[in-house]
């Protein structure tokens, strides 16, 4: 097991390097760079003359090495990350990228993990229930709900929830806190206020996964329950619940675990568009602004971080699978 984990980790190192390079290429694809945006910003907003703006942009270019060849820029960026943990500078926020991303990554993780918990517990639970009561009225209703959940774009779900909460119930949506708590210190009241807000993004981001787990769990369990070894176990006179838990469920859970590795980046990307709609302080709106404003180190770092979570998630899922399922060889 140890050597297996080590091998997986070693194999992922060159992969991560290639990923970082591709991410950097993609972020550099758009024509032009931040200096154009910068010039138009300061000439239109700050009233700086065109000539002065050109000069300031040239300084900026020199300061951050934007005038260097592409490969040199990449080298500077990646060596900064590896040697100093420095992800570069965000032009738009005028702060180091890590200062912009890390605080927001925490909130993104809270939403992602919350949605994940919801989708596994509720989705898996309903899936098991549907499989036991298959073709019943509740199964039909849950099937329809699952299809709706799989089909609704999550930004539209966010819009709908926002509309329903604010217009029908007069509630306060958007953001993670009510205005009076935004700058307050953590207290019990602030935490309650936080809970009142956080459930909306968790529902929005978690809906797809919940619906998916419902379907996957149900169909897996139905398949497994039809297997001969389950019938044999029953025929031997084992208790029905015992057969269900030890023989059927254990095998049906496997695809959900395999999916675990993909969930984290999947949830983070699901949170991108809905966070923009709900105006949440997560990484989604930052990434979007970075793309629009050609804030390339910020966008590139975010893209790379997502890819890294995918790689790590896949390794963890494989390890978990090897640990849970003795048939998996490594």
């Amino acid at each position, binding site marked *: 097991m140890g050597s297996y984990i080590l091998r997986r980790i070693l194999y992922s190192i060159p*992969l991560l390097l*290639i*990923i970082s390079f*591709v*991410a950097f290429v*993609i*972020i550099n*694809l*758009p*024509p032009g760079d931040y200096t154009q945006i910068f010039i138009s910003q300061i000439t239109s907003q700050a009233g700086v003359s065109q000539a002065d703006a050109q000069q300031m942009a040239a300084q900026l270019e020199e300061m951050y090495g934007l005038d260097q060849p592409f490969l040199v820029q990449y080298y500077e960026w990646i060596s900064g990350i590896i040697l100093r943990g420095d992800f570069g500078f965000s032009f738009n926020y005028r702060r180091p990228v890590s200062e912009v991303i890390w605080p927001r990554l925490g909130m993104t993780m809270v939403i992602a993990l919350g949605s994940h918990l919801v989708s596994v517990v509720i989705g898996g639970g309903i899936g098991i229930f549907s499989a036991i009561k298959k073709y019943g009225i509740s199964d039909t209703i849950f*099937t329809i709900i699952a*299809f*709706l959940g*799989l*089909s*609704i*774009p999550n*930004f*539209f779900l966010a*819009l*709908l929830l*926002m*509309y329903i909460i*604010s*217009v029908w119930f007069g509630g306060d*949506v*958007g953001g993670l806190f009510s205005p009076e708590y935004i700058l307050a210190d953590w207290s019990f009241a602030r935490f309650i206020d936080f809970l009142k807000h956080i459930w909306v993004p968790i529902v929005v981001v978690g809906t797809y996964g919940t619906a998916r787990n419902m379907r996957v769990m149900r169909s897996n369990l*139905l398949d497994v329950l*039809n297997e001969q070894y389950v019938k044999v176990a029953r025929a031997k006179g084992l208790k029905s619940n015992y057969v269900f838990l030890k023989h059927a469920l254990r095998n049906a859970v496997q695809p959900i675990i395999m999916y675990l590795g993909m969930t984290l*980046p*999947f949830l*983070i*990307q*699901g949170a*991108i*568009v809905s966070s*923009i*709609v709900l105006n949440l302080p997560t990484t989604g709106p930052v*990434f*979007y602004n970075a*793309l*629009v404003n050609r804030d390339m180190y910020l*966008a590139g770092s*975010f*893209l790379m971080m*997502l*890819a890294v979570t*995918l*790689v790590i998630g896949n390794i963890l899922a494989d390890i978990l699978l090897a640990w849970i399922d003795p048939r998996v060889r490594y």
Partner: protein
Amino acid sequence: MADQNNQQQNNYIQTEDKPEEVLEERTHVETYWGRIWRRFTKNRLSRAGLLIVGFMVLLSLFAPFFSPFDHTNTELRRAYHPPYEINFIDEEGNFHLRPFTYSMEQTLDPETWARIYEPDTSEKHYIHFFVRDWEYEVLGLFELDWHLFGVPEAGNYHMFGTDSLGRDMLSRIIYGSRVSIVVGIFGALVTIIVGTTVGTISGFFGGAVDMLLQRLTELIQMFPQLPLWMALSAAIPADWPAMWVFMGIVMLFALITWTFLGREVRGKVLSYRDSEFVRAAEIMGAGPAYLIVRHIVPNVLTHIIVVGTVTVPQLIIAESALSFLGLGIQPPMISWGVLLDDASTLEAISQYPWLMIPGVFILVTVLGFNFLGDGLRDAVDPYSDEG
């Protein structure tokens, strides 16, 4: 096996009794596709899916016929007009078989200066079907001026209200369906072509080619799709004409989604590559092209179709998300995502909730394609329990 023998014997015995009738029965052999079709249509959800998708495709093909207005017509006087009601029962409680509507009187709220629309119940305007209005071309073949419905007396009848420039939402949604659905279907087709080609080459030839293509696949799959699409579509130059942007978006989608199909096809091709019928054909002198086209691809075809069908709704959602953010299809071209862009703030949707209607169309269309894909997958799966 024993069952089969028994049956044959039974048939044989019966043929002696009633030869003609049974002969007929024995010559009816269900074809492969016939069996899939039977199993597919047996499923209630897949029938619903077929109906929804069929309806949406018709809507987009004959968009001008279904649209009561030219979707580009602006009328600022009627900006943000709420949807008209469709009534069957009038003020006195009488039932009318032909639906009618009241014209809306516009007043200004004296305090907030907001527009208020109130129905004027004194006069009924009946909805007419198959009215003649502005001219359009049907599929680029001939000109026509028939429209499904209209309210000639009222002049303006906005079933789903109007947008910020007073354009008819219903007509815009119907026209928007063209781009939304074509992005999905066209993108899925390109996905199928690229995925099948790469998967087949990779699985059939193996070796260094396979190694290279598989590493490329892995690399693309290492990135989460949506952020990658966002980053790539941000690279589409802003000064491109709308049609180019549209093609660019489709290509971006296909560029990333083909990997999944490529993997699956490769796996299938690998297993067929070593099967006896392919080996036999090879020994008899068949070249690689013949083997692939005649023996391998037909066996993988159903699988490809299933994956293609489930790709369509994913692309429709992706396009709507990108366009909603302003990174996808660019106006004046409209898709449902572009239309939803107007409904992106709480202020907009709380005052003009009808701007969210395009989202319902996305939901229903994606639902239809999901039903279709799910039903198809069950129908081609020989191990699924039904039929």
